[in-house]
């Protein structure tokens, strides 16, 4: 069970959250061609490693926020707010290398 650190409420159980998939996906305008639109609709980063994704604290404060989580270890490196761009984990200081032994 994941324990996710809501930036507003603190750490809570996975069951309180909904998962929104990849973050920072650009929505193309209506003028996009079919391939570009299909890419936006269906193709997602699906890395084995750090995934930038968004979650909503649905049973808590109702806020969406971003999470950088490793899909192999489930380790959460960073939680950041919706309006922040995709971070560079190497350079950010507040990256939490949680439990890294």
């Amino acid at each position, binding site marked *: 069970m*994941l324990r996710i650190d809501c930036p507003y409420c603190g750490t809570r159980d996975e069951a309180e959250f909904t998962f929104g998939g990849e973050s920072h996906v650009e929505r193309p305008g209506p003028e996009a061609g079919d391939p570009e639109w299909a890419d936006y*609709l269906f193709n997602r980063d699906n890395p084995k490693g750090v995934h930038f994704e968004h979650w*909503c604290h649905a049973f808590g404060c109702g806020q969406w926020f971003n999470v950088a989580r490793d899909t192999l270890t489930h380790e*959460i490196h960073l939680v950041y707010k919706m309006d922040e761009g995709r971070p560079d984990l190497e350079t950010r200081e507040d990256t939490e290398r949680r439990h890294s032994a």
Partner: protein
Amino acid sequence: MNAGQPFRRADGGRIDRSTLVMFTFNGRSYEGHAGDTLASALLANGIRTVTRSFKFHRPRGIFSAGFEEPNGLLGVDVGSGMIPITCATLMPLIAGLRAETQNSFPSVKFDFGRIFDYTRLLWPAGFYNKIFKWPNWRTFEWAIRRTAGLGALPKGADNSRYRHLNTHCDVLVVGAGSAGLNAALEAARRGEDVLLVEQDIEAGGSLLFDPTGIKGQAPGEFLDAALKELRAAPSVRIMLQSTVVGYYDHNVLTIHDRSAAYRGDASVETYWKVRAGRVVLATGAIEQPLMFGNNDLPGIMLAGAMLQYANRYAVLAGRRIAAVINNDLAWRTVIALQDSGVEVASIVDVRGKISADLVAAAEARGIDCHVGATPLKARGSRTVRALRVATSDGKTELVQCDGIAVSGGLNPTVHLFSQAGGKLRYDESRACFVPDHCAQALDVVGAAKGDFVMPENYRILPRTFAPVDTTTQWVDYVHDVTVSDLELSVRENFVSVEHMKRYTTTGMAVDQGKTSNLNALSVLARLTDQLPGQVGTTTFRPQFMPVTLGAVAGNRRGEFYAPARQLPAHNWHVQQGAVFDEYGGWKRPAFYGADRRASIREEVLKMRQAAGLFDGSPLGKIEVKGPDAAEFLSMMYVNTVHTLEAGKARYGLMLNENGVVMDDGVFVRLAGDHFLVNTTSGAATRIAMWLEEWRQCEFPRLQVITNEVAAQWAVATVAGPQARGILQSLPGMVDLDNESFPHMSFASGCFEDDVPFRIQRVSYSGECSFELSVPSNHGEEYFQRIMDIGEPNGLAPIGIEAILALRIEKGFLHVGVDTDGMTNALDVGFGGIVANKKTDFVGARSLQRAEDQRTDRRRLIGFEVENGTVLAGAHFVSGKRIRRSEGFVTSVFESPVLGKTIGLGLLERGFDRKGETIEVFDDDRLATARVVNPCFYDPDGERMRG
């Protein structure tokens, strides 16, 4: 010595001799003491053969004294039914306990199933893959199925209660042996809050039986002092009879707590979920058996277990035993055994060189020592009588004994460590796998870490099998896997440890290989010329010990399985004779009265002829406010939003980004910057979250906020020719006449009794219809008030089924019923609205794809049945011999008003097929129907607008 318990020592042990506990085994009565386990009590009574093995029905006896037990898995009844596969070594002896052998017929002493043992050669590992192919597997399956299964489901209802508990701690210490106690003490002294969890009925681990002192203290003294200090510390909680069974992500662990179990209808099992800052695994180590001929005979037991029976339970597992061992530590155990009254006839150590001190100590006690000897085969039919040994000088010798203590060394209990994602390392000096590293916040201490001994005091020889018939050397006792099975697996190239596991099923039984995995991979290593470290282990997974399914479910059963809401006027509906059903998480009146069909029909007629009162409270209501509210909603709806005037409502359709219809409903402009979005009942929460997701994630620049307000309001929908008159009579009601309050209007106000209300004129039934909202705490009162006014005018309560029928007559869409996961806005007749919308909206771009624009898509149509019966779910078909589905019936209603059966459906090219007669297929029956406009009743909407 106790006459009733011939193998009970005269004194010693931690049992309560003053309390006799009666129990039965296979129908016969026996006695034991409080503090016994079922296993120790059976042994005290001299019961050797407790069960028959799974595949070959060989006699088996108690093999261990803990959770690693592979044999003593019995049916046990302590007042909650005969529970199969209960571990006798963990089961506390309780008065009135009934135990049964499960896998034998007619009795455990004589079992016909033994035929499989005598024909053992025919049933090697994976035999079923090679045969039973002709004519097919099912021909044989029924018979095989009957022989499988370790026990049978208990009969009767389950009278135990189950619950969940969540908890948090700074440090979770798993295991209360010396290592765990020390870890708990240290943490407690630092002031951390500690949860110390022990699966046994008392704390102590090997302190309870191992006489070796700890830091100069006798084991008992250390234990008492430690417990005293821990019990006095306010930040320490100690849980007994509680097994940590799962180690999940982010240091969440689960505990199966049986401390209040086994008490008939007062039993409670608790399933804990612990969130631990740090975890200390002090889970000890499991002694491993050695492989030799007939090493599964009753009477053969792990050496440490024999010591535990002797010292903790005062039970002799044999009167004159042999010991078969491969390490120095076991010498200590065996000598301690002798000191505890178990006569040790001889020690057979497979190693060539042993410290003279050990031999001297043993010989001083009169023990015959065979150094560098090889155990060959145990003798005996239902219990061990002798052991044949090849001595170091090449001779064979027969050691007479009634028990054999085996020790193949210890193997750390690393299950939880592995579950946590930890990686293991093979430690050659200890011939076992020890924890290496793990990304979660945990420490491993004590025997679990491999710290049971210094290597120089251990000198273990890697385990191997004996040079005798490998079909008689057991590796996995539960699944009856022998060394020869492993050989076969290697011969056939199942050489990956994972293939061997699956091919032979080693380690896949309920004990998950606690005494077999290490031996199996040692054999594999030997057969493939590898080191065990190269072979590796299979994966440990939850559960560490089998957990009752009921405990995992907790009290989330019956009415608590899925929470359902009650309507504000629930009691009123009950009084009206409502029959309730669950719709989208609400208990709602399906209809009123006894007969489903008749009631629905009658309610429909009443609504059309006079008026109906329907509870629409579950409809979603979301307020959307802000200067950009209109722009936001314009993105969310297919429909145009800006042109809507304040106080007016508009019907709208919402799509997902793939163009598929998600929801429909009416939205109201309360004021320039303030809207009220009505959603369907089933989608209320989903749409509220959908709007928030777009608002927060995609359109944060828009100045808009949303409030989900549905729970505040009870909604009484009053519709029908008499509706206006009835509602107008409510004192304080706004003017409802058609000029001041036409169709699709909204107003709010306050009744004379100060109850605020909102009213909107929208219709799902096709009648003149008003949705009146009052605060939900006034719901019941207002339903009654409206009824009082309306009853003389023919007002009747209307259930949801009638409403769903009424809307069919109007051809109004029911999203999710008349649409499926592929229906787009164009398929439901929104082509014109889409074409007219000038701005972007969610799903718009998808509708431009060629696929979405195809005219042969399945479109929403109406139909009238011409011939036969049609039910929802029937298909429109073409073709005679080979049929092809052209779509399906989504809704049907035998309309009393129209006097015919009508329906809606999705039909290929549906918009172009008006007037066509089509075949309708249902369960091999055919009917015919004519395609018509999907509005059957009052097509011009005069009643609705009138």
